[in-house]
């Protein structure tokens, strides 16, 4: 037990990989066995990650928890260094929750090359978990890139008609962002010894030599020169913004989503996009405080464009999946807006909204997948009056629509409300634009629901549709529970985030808690 507790993060992250290696030895013809095994691995993975929630000490403010730190490549100064705080805790749990649901949703959908499919799903799961637990930038980068390969295969092999195009676009976009990110990491790596030499307290804590320790980088953050922060922020920005995706780097997302198989979309929207926002939270903000403040105008502008543009484009989509994909662009705009408001409300909302987006958009992709499996089309005009034949499905879809819109009592409301509060604290017009995004969001989601679910059945092909079966209900119910939990009683989540978010604000805006609660123009661009 003690061993388990000390190495829980490693076990959580590498468990899917271990399951994958075992899976390699299965006969590829015994598809049932493969499915059972993959599902079992994922469910156990979730159960193994649950103790994190209970063992996590919510009162510790400035320390990572469940830390493991081993030397890995001493010549480079790279370590196997993992640990989590409240922010990564939520994302890790979101990943271990969505993983089994995505795998379960593939039970009937994936008929060809079953073994490879589950191999890649498990590999992807391990890569994503690794990203969220890494505290060593080198290790982080390895996980960050490793998970491109399984995702590429998931889209490229099991995707829709334009899968090859979508897969290569996904890979190229993300890779271009990643390599620039790598240069930013290297710049920090070579700057660290110089700054550590000038500040003995940092050298005493993290050592004088080159390191990839993220915490060490966070410690030298305030002492990095402005030009340095300017360029490294841009490098990080490209890397993370492509992943989020922020306007104008979002164009890979609709293609990837539309072509990916359902489970791929769920993981892509639910977890992969969060890697971008997580990158900003964990690296850009605390390591480059001046750069963060300097680029607030740009970041907020892009976030707002993303919110409004994503919503407008979503409204015009004839394809359900593409609609949900563009709604992601809009929702992630909210996440970025809250984050760059740089106050506790905004950041709390931003992180909660990431979880919400994972839950509701993940669920919406599952819903689109369920209807697609029955009708093999996602054209909105092909549907109408579905609630008559699929009542359970209609209820599920309604709940998730409301959750996505941000109706009170459901999760979306909590996140959007906190983000709006954060934005209002800084600038009235930020909140005004964000509010217009909420209105547009309600419009396209309700319109989608109305066109597909309500009214009479006009298309004869829809008359005999079967309602959800037990497996599908099991897939979606956990997400509904989560949506209500966060909507009705979000306090445990905010409680987890409280300390790390305050610490983050203190790093980026040291004056925030000393009676300067608003960012002003001078502060945003002012030289230190």
């Amino acid at each position: 037990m003690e061993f388990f507790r000390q190495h829980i993060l490693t076990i959580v992250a590498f468990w899917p990989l271990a399951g994958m290696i075992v899976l390699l030895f299965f006969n590829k013809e015994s598809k049932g066995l493969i499915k059972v095994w993959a599902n079992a691995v994922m469910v156990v993975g979730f159960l193994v990650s649950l103790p994190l929630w209970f063992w996590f000490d919510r009162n510790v403010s400035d320390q990572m928890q469940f830390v493991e730190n081993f030397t890995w490549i001493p010549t480079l100064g790279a370590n196997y260094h993992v640990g989590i705080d409240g922010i990564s805790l939520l994302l890790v749990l979101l990943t271990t929750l969505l993983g089994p649901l995505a795998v379960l949703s593939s039970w009937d959908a994936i008929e060809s090359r079953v073994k490879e499919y589950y191999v890649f799903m498990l590999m992807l799961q391990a890569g994503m978990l690794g990203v969220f637990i890494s505290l060593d930038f080198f290790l982080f980068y390895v996980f960050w890139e490793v998970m491109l390969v399984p995702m590429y295969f998931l889209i490229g092999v099991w995707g829709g008609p334009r899968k090859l195009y979508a897969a290569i676009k996904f890979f190229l976009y993300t890779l271009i962002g990643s390599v620039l990110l790598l240069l930013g990491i290297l710049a920090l790596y070579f700057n660290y010894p110089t700054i550590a030499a000038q500040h003995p307290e940092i050298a005493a804590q993290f050592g004088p030599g080159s390191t990839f320790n993220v915490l060490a980088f966070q410690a030298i953050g305030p002492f990095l020169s402005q030009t340095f922060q300017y360029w490294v922020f841009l490098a990080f920005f490209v890397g993370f913004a492509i992943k989020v995706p922020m306007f104008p780097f979002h164009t890979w997302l609709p293609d990837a989503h539309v072509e990916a198989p359902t489970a791929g979309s769920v993981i892509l929207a639910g977890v992969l996009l969060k890697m971008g926002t997580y990158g900003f939270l964990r690296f850009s903000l605390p390591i480059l405080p001046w750069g963060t403040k300097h680029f607030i105008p740009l970041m907020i502008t892009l976030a707002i464009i993303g919110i409004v543009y994503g919503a407008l484009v979503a409204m015009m989509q004839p394809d359900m999946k593409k609609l949900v994909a563009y709604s992601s662009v809009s929702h992630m705009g909210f996440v970025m807006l809250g984050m760059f408001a740089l106050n506790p409300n905004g950041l709390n909302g931003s992180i909660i909204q990431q979880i919400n987006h994972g839950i509701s958009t993940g669920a919406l992709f599952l819903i689109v997948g369920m209807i697609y499996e029955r009708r093999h089309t996602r054209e909105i005009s092909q549907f109408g009056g579905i609630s008559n034949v699929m009542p359970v499905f209609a209820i599920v879809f309604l709940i998730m629509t409301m959750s996505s819109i941000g109706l009170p009592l459901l999760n979306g409301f909590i996140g959007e409300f906190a983000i709006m509060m954060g934005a209002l604290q800084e600038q009235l017009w930020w909140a005004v634009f964000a509010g217009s995004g909420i209105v547009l969001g309600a419009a396209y989601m309700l319109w989608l629901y109305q066109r597909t679910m309500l009214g009479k059945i006009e298309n004869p092909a829809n008359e005999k549709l079967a309602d959800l079966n037990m497996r599908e209900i099991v897939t979606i119910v956990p997400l509904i529970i989560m949506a209500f939990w966060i909507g009705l009683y979000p306090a445990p989540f905010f409680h987890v985030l409280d300390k790390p978010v305050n610490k983050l604000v203190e790093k980026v805006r040291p004056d925030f808690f000393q009676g300067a609660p608003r960012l002003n123009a001078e502060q945003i661009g002012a030289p230190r």
Partner: protein
Amino acid sequence: MPQFFQIQDLGAITPELELAVFGMFLLIFDLLIQQKRRLGYIALAGIASSALFLYRIRDIEFSAYGGVLSLDAFSIFFKLIFLIAAALSIAISLRYLDIERENHGEYYALILFSTMGMMFMAGAVDLVTLYIGLETMAIATYVLVGFLRSNQRSNEASMKYFLLGAFSSAILLYGMSLLYGISGSTRFVDIAEALSRRPVTDPISLMAMITVSAGMFFKIAAVPFHQWTPDAYEGAPTSITAFMSVAVKAASFAMMLRIFMVALYPLRPQWVSIMAAVSVMTMTVGNIAAITQSNLKRLLAYSSISHAGYILIGFIAGNATGITAVGLYLLIYTFTNIGAWAVIVALRRRDVIGEHIDDMAGLFFKHPAAAVLMLIFLLSLAGIPPTAGFIGKYYLFAAAIETGHNVLAVIAVLNAAISIYFYLRIVVSMFMRDATERTGLTSAPGLSFALGIALIFTMVIGIYPDPFIALARQAVVAGF
């Protein structure tokens, strides 16, 4: 003044001598042994014995033959690369030559002679020794490129390679003669000293530097001196292409390191800017040209051009990290690239040429292991972790950032990202297209052996690179 010949000097070149002796015995045995594959095993034994001796003298620092040949960690590191490359090339040739119906003893002897030339190149700290090593390597390689006598493309490739190779050697020699004229010595250290005493803008020094550089750029196939590469790589027997793309390239880079980082070091401000331009052009042209290729051999030829462009970054950085990066990258590239070429060698069957990208279509369904191996090698070439290629690229980019060559680093990483496009084309063909009746592989123990070694090192260096980085670093510290 050191004595010109001491008896210990023979010890310093014993690994080379062993190769020469085995090569000559191979020529004799060729008359006696009908089973030509056995000659391959004898050649492998020669390489093994040479490597063994190399291992025994690994800690000796020795300046042999009055200081024209240096035995140090640097030369041993590179000699090791050549021996590995030669051994793996022979392993993948055994069945391939049977299929091409050209299994002759000279083939193995020539590989040994060529490797011996490379080993002299890595050890040379003197222009004449260097040049003799270079020509020994080159002449043997010219013959090997044209080894498929009845194949028109092979003959054409050999002719082209020979003409351009001779041309570039002449340019190189011209530069060398200028260097001798300037310094009155053929030794690198003397040349460096003479150059440092001349004014920075001295036209003769510049002329010497430019002609030497041009000759070197020919040898490593840097743009704009790269045109021979796709043709030579395509026409040569595939196993020899593999050999050229790793061993000959590594030898050329070893020679470049000695020349640029020792002899021409006083002119560094001048050659750095030239080399930066060449590096940017080389990686960009190599990558963009590779995108449109559908012949696998040409595709990998352009890919190897772009890799030469990346390696030049190490020279431009010029510090310990940079030069370590060159050595490390070449070591990694040896395993990864031989692995990729081995799969292409395996595509050749009695009735199928197996060079087109469609010949790989659906390879995964017929030979899953080979397809997965190829995937790993391609990801390594593209520099995706956790493969060795990432460590190599990481080190080069790190060197560029460390020395403040930020723009160069940005161009290089964008190139690395672009390169994934054409590597993934092969992946698409292998994994996402249906198999045709042309899809298939030869299997042979030699091929499996080479693939296994390449896989092990590609993954081990990728996941636990520490000892290999230490090895490369130790070599560099000794050399410069």
